[in-house]
């Protein structure tokens, strides 16, 4: 992050109640339900990490991004994956520069202290977040993908908010970052980590809220289309699919239908645009062969009631 940006961000917005946070999130185009707003508020107020779990596509990652925008804080994101280690999550030494430096200097004149100083340090997300002077939202995305060794390490960092680099010493957080962890539950997280965190399960949004989201994210969407699209996606989630569509899919789909100049949905247009909602071939086939027409009819009926 640039120095100028840091200065601007240093004026973090102080949000003193759940209502204030909810409004601030709305202002940055994110519509949380009350539970999520409470969870994000508590994460800030209690300075505790919050773990967000929920089906794919309910907006876990988006929530952290919105929180950073709403608070005027810098977002630092650590995307987890199998094999993620300290070198990619915390810090690494710039080996190329170190080697060049040793070679360029006269023999015997390079001290270890010089070689392992700030100049040769590559700062990765966790160090960046702990060692920040400006307000920060740290997003640890898909923690369930990282392996258990890393989880244990993260637990340590989140307990003390400090990082030890053998060559440099211990770096303590001067102001604690707001920490948001997300998990898709591909595996059960360790209890110790869960105990350290606030926990919030995000459900798919209610029909009303999803309509609201569509109208916010798809400019020019017809009122009836927004309602019918949301209702249809809701029907899909209730039926038996391998990969039920998330909110992002609803938005994409409503966007596509709007571009096509649609005011509402019918069998034909659903049939041709199904690909933007369902990402698994089996689901598309099962639906085409089966209940598609019935689901469309149901959705239209729900929307008009």
């Amino acid at each position, binding site marked *: 992050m640039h120095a100028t940006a840091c200065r601007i961000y240093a004026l973090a917005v102080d949000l003193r*109640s*759940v209502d204030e946070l909810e409004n601030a999130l709305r202002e940055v185009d994110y519509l949380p339900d*009350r*539970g999520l707003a*409470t*969870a994000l*508020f*508590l994460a800030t*107020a*209690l300075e*505790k990490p*919050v*773990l967000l*779990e929920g089906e794919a596509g309910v907006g876990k990652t988006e929530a952290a991004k919105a929180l950073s925008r709403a608070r005027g804080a810098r977002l630092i994101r650590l995307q987890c994956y*199998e*094999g993620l*280690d300290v*070198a990619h999550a915390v810090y690494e*030494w710039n*080996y190329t520069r*170190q*080697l060049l430096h*040793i*070679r360029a200097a006269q*023999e*015997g004149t*390079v001290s*270890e202290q010089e*070689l392992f100083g700030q100049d040769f340090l590559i700062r990765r997300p966790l160090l960046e977040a702990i060692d920040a002077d400006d307000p920060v939202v740290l997003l640890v995305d898909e923690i369930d993908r990282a*392996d258990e*060794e890393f989880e244990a390490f993260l637990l340590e960092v989140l307990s003390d908010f400090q990082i030890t680099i053998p060559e440099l010493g211990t770096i303590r957080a001067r102001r604690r970052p707001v920490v948001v962890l997300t998990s*898709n*539950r*591909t*595996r*059960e997280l360790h*209890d110790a980590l*869960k*105990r350290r*965190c*606030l*926990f*919030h*399960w995000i459900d798919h949004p209610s029909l009303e809220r999803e309509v609201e989201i569509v109208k916010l994210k798809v400019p020019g969407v017809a009122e009836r289309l927004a309602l019918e699209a949301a209702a249809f996606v809701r029907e899909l989630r209730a039926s*038996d699919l*391998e*990969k039920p569509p998330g909110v992002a899919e609803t938005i994409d789909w409503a966007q596509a239908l709007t571009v096509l100049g649609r005011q509402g949905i019918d069998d034909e247009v659903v049939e041709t645009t199904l690909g933007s909602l369902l990402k698994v071939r089996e689901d598309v086939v099962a639906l085409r062969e089966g209940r598609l027409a019935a689901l469309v009819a149901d959705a239209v009926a729900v929307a008009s009631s």
Partner: protein
Amino acid sequence: MTQTGDALLADLVGFGRLLRAGGAEVGPGRVADAVRGLEAVGLRDDRDVYFTLRQTLVSHREELELFDRAFASWMRGVGAARLEEQDVKVLASASTRRSGGDEGREGEERQGETSTRGASIVEVLRQKDFALLDEGELEEVARLLSEVGRVRPRRTSRRLRPSARGQRLDVRRLVRRSLRSGGELVELPTRTRKVVPRKLVVLCDVSGSMAPYARALLLFLHATAQAGRVEAFAFGTRLHRLTSDLAARNPDAALAQVSQHVVDWGSGTRIGASLKQFNDEYGRQALSRGAVVVIASDGWERGDPELLGREMARLSRAAYSVVWINPLKGTPGYEPLAQGMRAALPFVDRFLPGHNLDSLEGLAGVLAGIERRHAA
């Protein structure tokens, strides 16, 4: 809400106790967080009180239902009488989580006695069908099983560790060492991939036709779970996740917990429907992806064999390897004639018996060396 605010704070400890009685893990630190949380959000809005307590006290999705009941019951009681004992009982029985603790140590005394019985008896036990074991023999088998279960399938991790014969340069060490030689690269330290246990998912049929084998298989599962992370499920007409039940150290305590939760112990079998439930709920969370999946069942399907075939196909697509153990296969001349078994077999990589200790040892050997897509 405001009038009841003080009572609410005062009674929060009681609420924590109520949740614990239901089987949720609520440490003292969590109640302190709940108090701080309520102070921060205020008590004006019931929704905020609800979510604050939920987010601070509960850390598993499976506990949310329990929480909702406890919360409703507690709200009724705030400012008035204490919770009725009845509520606690309802909660306790509704719980799907373990309550911890190692009860039931009665079996231990017999162990010393049985170990003096001599090797020949052990030999006989190895071959004896689980269905024919008496109580004492079963205990001996349990002891032997705890050794067998320790073997796990393995895979190479993406993590690296220093190794003399690795393929990747360990640049960090390289820089450190070259410092001594003024930047000359004298030796090239390397790193290699670690080998770690592969995910193991076990689905155990506990329906009526499997009853004689279920207990031995669950003991096997318990032993396996002690050796590392195993995701274990029992099924009959429906699927039950056993992972947390098997965490107890004592096999008998673990079995007691399992039998409490598996309500359809000894009822009919719907393998296809149970697998579907597994694929829907856990497969979607990628629990089975890259895992060795072991199914223990005799293949007597009461439901639709076609559904079973379909769900087996789904499972085998996600899994690294599918092993089916069938106690009937131990019978000389056994042919997989059961419709369910026939529907499932095309998607099974290894088809093994599991009727005695010997065959479970065979299973352990197979698991240790398993590779993808063996012929059945």
